[in-house]
């Protein structure tokens, strides 16, 4: 085949091999514990710890005292001469590593709250006081406290396969969570002189002992939340008699702690049906002014959980709805003060139900009997079966919704904030409470995966739900910033935590699902991962391997780029060249050459000389053959040449010469460094449009620059890379051929004649102010 021109070289072997190298040594060597397929192996083991906990909440001193008996099961093949427990409350002890390593910006620029918080850190008498550590025989066991960890030295090593019982007594003051950002604490309501408690990471908990790390030995500095062993819990919580308690587990003695009317409602709410109050807003309001003298003990049992938390207050409204999930009844419940109304009774429990319905579809059935959402001082935090969620309406009960109806001028903000945080925190039941990844090591394994599912659940809540991290383009400002660490960074060292450990992995998985693997392959592999590792302890390699193993898609390039790297997607269409077959037919080719010549724009000089009287015009004697020669005229010699050519060609070659095709050589530059599929939109002269997805493997030999030839039978008028913004491409300005002019956001805003949504609905109030 003869082309008019020569195609540029398709690719050069540089960069591509590195981008597509297999992960190899970056992953742990497969063993019979963790297989190369990403599944738990026949040798898989994990420890187990069962707890019986008795605790008393002191509402006068904001303090808890408790004791626990732990039955520790050594399922490992190793003898253990000591056990480690976590004392997370020691993070709040004076002089803790968390405080000592805390940094801040200029003091002059701190808000009052930040200053008050710093003062509170200096004042608060935090940390766990250990009263005793005893063996099953009642004898003291020696122990050593190393900041947020406590080591129990065993008189005799605990043999592989053996179990042992020991007891710990402890106490700690409860932190004011309105002053110090924390995962648990109290909130004081000055108007009615009441406290609301959210108690978490509160009892000495056995640290994880694993096949991949041994004892989990990372101190608690605040970011890496926790990882623990699964077990069964019996929990006895003693509180003022007029408190309502929510806790991980099923309430065992409702008849002892609830009034007759509450008990009747509670029992009715256990049946599948509509959402209903167990404690009404009016009853909770009335309860605020009461002060019971006695105490009651609420008993809960939770099976196969890795932690327990609880909340307690006399301010709680309590509503519930029982739904079916995977054939079992699950009681979705919300506990909140009247300050949460009217948002909470409308949205909290429905958000719990919705989360379980959507998440279960992508993973496994929700395995617990209850799922709880509590409103209090903690902005958002998760524990098995129970979550703490902070958003409330303004004090006048209004909240913000930019899509409010015309005429409704109430200021509404927190509706979507509340729904989203509940979806997120309830979603954590799946990751990492059940798929028990190690939060002290890898924040993204729970926060990133959960944020990905959160977005799917938000999309199913209502059309155009304002998800904050649902679309790849929302991640671009982070991806192109100059201070980044890879996703595969330890939880305590992550820089820009929200974007790194939540946003980036969530968007990465979304891109994987929508643009790399496709929904069917992704959903199957993702569900396989969840099923394989529920109630087990996966590492990143188990996730990476399972996603590949279950889909037959080599994703090492994707993990390498998105999880081990800090590059970003920025693809440019650098050049487009059109080639057409030279038919050698002089009738066709000379006519085409003539058209090209006539279409050529004259130069300025040619234009200005157009009317010039030249010498040959004045003196025709100077003209000869070449003055009247038509270079585009077909001559006998041309026909002879053409016939000669045809005689030397086969029939197939002759047919090819008659093909009428356009050859477009499109050069793509990878300016961001992260290799990516190329979603393309090709527009033709007849206005028809073709959508095309080129796999990322186009970069496998040269990750910097590739040229792709598109052979079409129609003229192309435009080629656009990623018009649906699905790759997080950083710079749309170079995504089109020919180039499209895109004004800046500021220019767009200034030039816009359209009022923003608030002004549209509130014109009477604001039109005098804003022009």
């Amino acid at each position, binding site marked *: 085949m003869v082309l008019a021109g020569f195609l540029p070289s398709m690719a050069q072997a540089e960069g591509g091999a590195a981008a597509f190298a297999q992960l190899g040594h970056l992953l742990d060597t497969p063993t019979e514990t963790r297989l190369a397929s990403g599944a738990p192996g026949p040798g898989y083991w994990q420890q187990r710890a069962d707890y019986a906990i008795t605790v008393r909440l002191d509402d006068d001193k904001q303090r808890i005292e408790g004791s626990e008996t732990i039955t520790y099961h050594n399922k490992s093949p190793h003898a253990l001469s000591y056990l480690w427990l976590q004392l997370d409350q020691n993070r709040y002890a004076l002089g803790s590593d968390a405080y000592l390593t805390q*940094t801040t910006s200029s003091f002059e620029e701190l808000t*009052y709250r930040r200053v008050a918080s710093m003062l509170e850190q200096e004042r608060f008498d935090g940390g766990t006081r250990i009263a005793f550590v005893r063996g099953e025989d009642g004898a003291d066991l020696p122990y050593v406290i190393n900041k947020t960890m406590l080591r129990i030295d065993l008189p005799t090593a605990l043999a592989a396969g053996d179990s042992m019982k020991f007891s710990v007594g402890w106490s700690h003051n409860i932190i004011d969570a309105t002053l110090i950002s924390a995962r648990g604490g109290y909130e004081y309501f000055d108007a009615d002189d009441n406290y609301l408690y959210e108690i978490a990471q509160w009892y000495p908990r056995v640290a994880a002992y694993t096949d991949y790390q041994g004892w989990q030995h990372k101190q608690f500095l605040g970011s890496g939340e926790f990882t623990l062993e699964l077990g069964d819990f019996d929990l006895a919580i003693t509180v003022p008699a007029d408190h309502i308690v929510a806790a991980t587990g099923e309430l065992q003695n409702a008849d002892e702690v609830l009034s007759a009317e509450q008990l009747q409602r509670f029992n009715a709410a256990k049946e599948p049906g509509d959402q209903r109050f167990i404690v009404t807003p009016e009853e909770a309001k009335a309860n605020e002014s009461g002060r019971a003298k006695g105490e009651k003990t609420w008993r809960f049992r939770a099976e196969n959980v890795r932690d327990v938390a609880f909340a307690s207050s006399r301010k709680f409204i309590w509503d519930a709805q029982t739904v079916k999930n995977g054939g079992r009844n699950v009681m979705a419940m919300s506990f909140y003060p009247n300050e949460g109304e009217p948002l909470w009774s409308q949205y909290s429990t429905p958000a719990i139900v919705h989360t379980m319905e959507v998440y279960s579809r992508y993973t496994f059935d929700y395995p617990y009997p209850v799922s709880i959402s509590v409103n209090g001082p903690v902005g958002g935090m998760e524990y098995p079966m129970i979550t703490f969620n902070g958003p409330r309406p303004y004090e006048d009960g209004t909240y*913000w919704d930019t899509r409010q109806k015309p005429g409704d001028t109430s200021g509404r903000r927190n509706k979507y904030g509340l729904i989203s945080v509940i979806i997120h925190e309830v979603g954590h039941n799946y990751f990492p409470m059940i798929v028990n990844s190690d939060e002290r090591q890898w924040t993204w394994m729970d926060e990133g995966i959960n944020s990905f599912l959160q977005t799917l659940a938000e999309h199913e809540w209502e059309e155009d739900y*304002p998800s904050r991290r649902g679309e790849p383009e929302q991640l671009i400002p*982070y991806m192109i910033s100059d201070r980044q660490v890879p996703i595969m960074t330890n939880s305590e060292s992550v820089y820009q935590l929200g974007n790194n450990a939540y946003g980036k992995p969530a968007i990465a998985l979304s891109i994987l699902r929508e643009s790399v693997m496709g929904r069917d392959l992704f959903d199957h592999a993702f569900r396989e991962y969840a099923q394989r590792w529920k109630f087990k302890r996966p590492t990143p390699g188990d996730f990476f391997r399972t996603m590949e193993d279950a889909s037959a898609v080599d994703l090492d390039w994707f993990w390498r780029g998105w999880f081990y790297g800090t590059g970003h997607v920025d693809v440019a269409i650098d050049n487009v060249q059109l080639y057409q077959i030279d038919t050698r037919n002089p009738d066709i080719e000379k006519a085409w050459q003539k058209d090209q010549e006539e279409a050529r724009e004259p130069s300025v000089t040619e234009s200005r000389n157009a009317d010039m009287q030249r010498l040959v015009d004045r003196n025709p004697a100077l003209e000869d053959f070449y003055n009247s020669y038509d270079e585009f005229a077909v001559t006998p010699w041309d026909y002879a040449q053409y016939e000669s050519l045809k005689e030397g060609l086969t029939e197939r070659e002759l047919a090819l010469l008659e093909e009428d095709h356009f050859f477009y050589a499109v050069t793509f530059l990878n300016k961001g460094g992260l290799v990516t599929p190329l979603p393309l939109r090709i527009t033709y002269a007849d206005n028809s449009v073709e959508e095309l997805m080129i796999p990322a493997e186009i970069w496998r030999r040269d990750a910097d620059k590739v040229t792709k030839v598109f052979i079409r039978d129609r003229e192309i008028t435009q080629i656009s890379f990623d018009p649906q913004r699905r790759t997080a491409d950083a710079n749309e300005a170079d995504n089109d051929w020919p180039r499209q002019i895109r004004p800046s956001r500021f220019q767009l805003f200034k030039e816009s004649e359209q009022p923003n*949504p608030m002004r549209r609905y509130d014109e009477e109030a604001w039109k005098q102010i804003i022009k």
Partner: protein
Amino acid sequence: MGRGALLRALLAFLLIPQALWAHPFHGSYAELEWSQGGTLDVAIKVIPEDLERALTSLAGTKTVLRDTPPVRALLVQYLDKHFRVLPENPSTQTQIVGMELDHRDTWIYFSIPATPNSAPRLRNTVLMDLEATQTNRVKRLWLPEAPVLVFSAAEPERDL
């Protein structure tokens, strides 16, 4: 801030119920471009509840983020302190051009009298007064190939 001022500040704080952090996304993003009229035009995206908290703290009274003259005045006061082009011209002030208030993306548009002639630096401590881990990203539209600058407590000032 002297001792007296600090005490007054704390007293003011104690009177204001504070919302608490409910997300880990302590970041903002701004696009900058020089205008023909001698200003640096800024479009900055923030999390609205964070900005509302900052304005509440600045005002000493509960402030709802709405596009009203009092909120604009507070915003000017806040931005003059936390989004500064250096060296500064003390006689100039930030001009609010407009706002787009939405739960997903809240954008504030403003202009700062400044020119690129004096090798300017930017001090961007927006919302760092609320969260120690706040990071602010800034894209310079006149340098489309340059990386986005990140401002943090450890690095609040950078060359533009």
